Each structure stands twice: as structure tokens, then as C-alpha cells.
């Protein structure tokens, strides 16, 4: 089976602290990996490493194009939500907005969105990108129960379509996941 993500012997040191060493990480089509661990164990750093925003101190990464949702919004606050998301030019924008129940909010300026609505917007951007590999950093933060259900459904559909998900969260996520515990 071809791998969408392949990290070999990854070592990461941040601020003089060794977060992990010799970590092997593989994600094939349809797979999902849930990274857990206490605060400061390097979950977010692993996501940024997988995204290519950090360089590993040792090891190598091969991967397909990725989309990432983290705690930052990256949407222009003065624009309506629909316009701000459209800037990112995702081919599946309409489906993504419907999947995360954002259609009714399309005309609301981004600066007026609540925490949960903003979170759904960042998740919708990931889905809209059409990329096969999703990187989600604490995707459940700020989501209400309905939002969590929408996310679970989106992840399930994405995996059925041959995508893969790498998520870091200290909370359990719905569905079948392989888990990787950092800092254990």
C-alpha cells in the first residue's frame, strides 16, 4: 500500500528539550493516527513537523500535499466568512461549508465569529483544500457536540475517499484511530 505520509527516525529538539527521538510514522490511504500525550509532550510540534513548518533534527519525511488546521485562524477578519474562505481557493469549498454548517454564516464578518464557529471555519478550509492528508491540531477545542459530530462525519468521509488524518488531541476523537502516545 502506498504511503501518504512516511516519517523515518524523526528526532526533534525544541528549546533545548528532546521531544522525541527515532520516531517512525506512517500513514496510508484511509488511515488515521491520533497523537496523544500530556501538555508540552510535542503533539503540536509533531503536527508542524509533518506540515514541513519545522525541520527535524534528524530523520526524513516524505509526504503528499497537506492541509493543516491549528489554533490560528488565518482568515481576514474584516471579510465575510465566505469571502475569507474563498481566498484559499479550495476546490471543495461549497461542500466543506455545508459539512460544517457554515452556509448560514457566509455573510458574517470573520471578526464576529464565536470560538466554535471559527474552529469550524478552519476545519472547513482543510476539507475544502481537497488535499489527501489532513493535519489537525486540537481539532475539538471550542467545538460543541454538533460540531464534533460534523467533524467525525467529515473525517469518516475523507478516509473512505482514500484520505488520511493525523490529529493531535488530548481528548478522545470519534471513530477508529491508531494512537501514538508522546512523552510516555
Amino acid at each position, binding site marked *: 500500500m502506498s504511503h501518504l505520509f512516511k516519517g523515518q527516525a524523526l528526532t526533534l529538539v525544541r528549546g533545548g528539550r528532546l521531544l522525541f527521538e527515532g520516531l517512525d510514522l506512517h500513514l496510508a490511504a484511509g488511515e488515521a493516527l491520533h497523537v496523544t500525550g500530556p501538555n508540552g509532550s510535542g503533539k503540536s510540534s509533531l503536527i508542524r513537523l509533518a506540515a514541513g513548518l519545522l525541520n527535524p533534527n534528524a530523520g526524513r519525511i516524505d509526504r503528499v500535499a497537506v492541509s*493543516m488546521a491549528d*489554533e*490560528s485562524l*488565518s482568515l481576514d477578519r474584516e471579510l465575510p466568512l465566505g469571502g475569507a474562505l474563498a481566498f484559499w*481557493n479550495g476546490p471543495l469549498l461549497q461542500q466543506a461549508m455545508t459539512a460544517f454548517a457554515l452556509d448560514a454564516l457566509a455573510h458574517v464578518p470573520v471578526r464576529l465569529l464565536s470560538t466554535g464557529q471559527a474552529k469550524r471555519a478552519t476545519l472547513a478550509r482543510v476539507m475544502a483544500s481537497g488535499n489527501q492528508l489532513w493535519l489537525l491540531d486540537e481539532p475539538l477545542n471550542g467545538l460543541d457536540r454538533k460540531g464534533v459530530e460534523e467533524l467525525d462525519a467529515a473525517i469518516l468521509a475523507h478516509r473512505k475517499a482514500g484520505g488520511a488524518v493525523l490529529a493531535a488531541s488530548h481528548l478522545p476523537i470519534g471513530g477508529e484511530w491508531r494512537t501514538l502516545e508522546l512523552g510516555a
Partner: protein
Amino acid sequence: MTGRLIAREVRRGLHGTAWLPVAFFLLIATVVPFAVGPDPRLLARIGGGALWIAALTAALLPVERLIEPDRADGMLDQLTLWGMSEEAIGAAKVVGHWLTFGPLLLLSAVPGSFLVGLDGSALFRSLMSLAIGTPALAALSVAVAALTSGLPRAGALAGLLMMPLAVPLVIFGAAATGDSNSAALKLEAAVALLMVAGSPFVAGAAIRAGRT
């Protein structure tokens, strides 16, 4: 994506504070005659230099909004994930910033030139010199903005960093407003070209180095 980013920079520039550097520029040009006295000969001699000082200080104003908000909001990270190199981001920022800064400054340089007593051929020379100089000022602003983004009191630091770097530009730019026979305009163009060509690489490296 580069075109979309340029369009976004222009929209955000015009949406917010594009008039602020222009107003600042004209204010300084207004203050000069008050400071040195209304003697037309003296004003005509220092007018070109005064305009350049006004343009340089005006270019400092938008530095804080050029890179830092996008860094803090993860915009730069997302653009990288979307396949843009950091250098391309820097180049798009330079173009987008110049489009909201350069033409408006040139427009206001016409009344600004009259305020410091330049007219006729001196007005034309000062406009030429500023037309060549504003892309370099925009490029310098973006590079300095990238270098100082994420630092505390970045605004003050940006001033300290940008003023010395702009000295060659000011020397040749101001000289080009004075004497039509000198090679100052060509030298100014050479300095401007170096800054415009180098800025995306400086900004790109600074964006990468500033990642946490």
C-alpha cells in the same frame, strides 16, 4: 496564489491605512518651510532632500502591519502549506505594498514639491527620483518588517534598522532631485534595483527563521 496574495495586500492596504503615510509625507513637507524659514532660494536648495526625508519617514509608518499580523495569525504558515515559497510571499508583499504606497506618494509629491519650493524642472526631477525610489522603500519596508516581526517593540526597532539601510537611497535620490547632469539618478536606480531584488530573499529567510 501569488496574484491572489497581491490583490489581498492591495485590498487590505486601501481598506485601512493607505492614506496615513501620504498625510504624514505632506505634513513633513509642510513643516519644513516653517522650520527653515520661507527664503525661496534656501528652500529650493534643500527641498529635494526634505522630500526624501519625508518619504522615508512616511515609509516607516506601515512597517508594523506588513508582516507581523500575518505571522501571528498563521497566515504565513498556511500560504507555505499552499505551496508558496517564503520568497514568493516576500515578493508578493513588496508588490502589494508598493501598489498602495508608491502611486499615492507620487501623487502627493506634486503638492509636496510646491510646499518645499520646487517647481518646473525641479518638480519633474523630484518626481522621477521618487518614482524610482518608492519601490525600493516598499521593498525595504517589507524586509525590515519580516526581520522585526515577532519581536517586542518591533516598531521602534524597525526605525533603527531601516534608516541606516536607506542611506544610499537617500544620498542618490536627493542628489538626483538637485542636478539634472549628474549620474545620481542612475546610481539611485542601481541601489533601488538591488533593494527590490534582494528584499524577497531577506524577507523569506526572516520568515523561515522566525517560525516557532
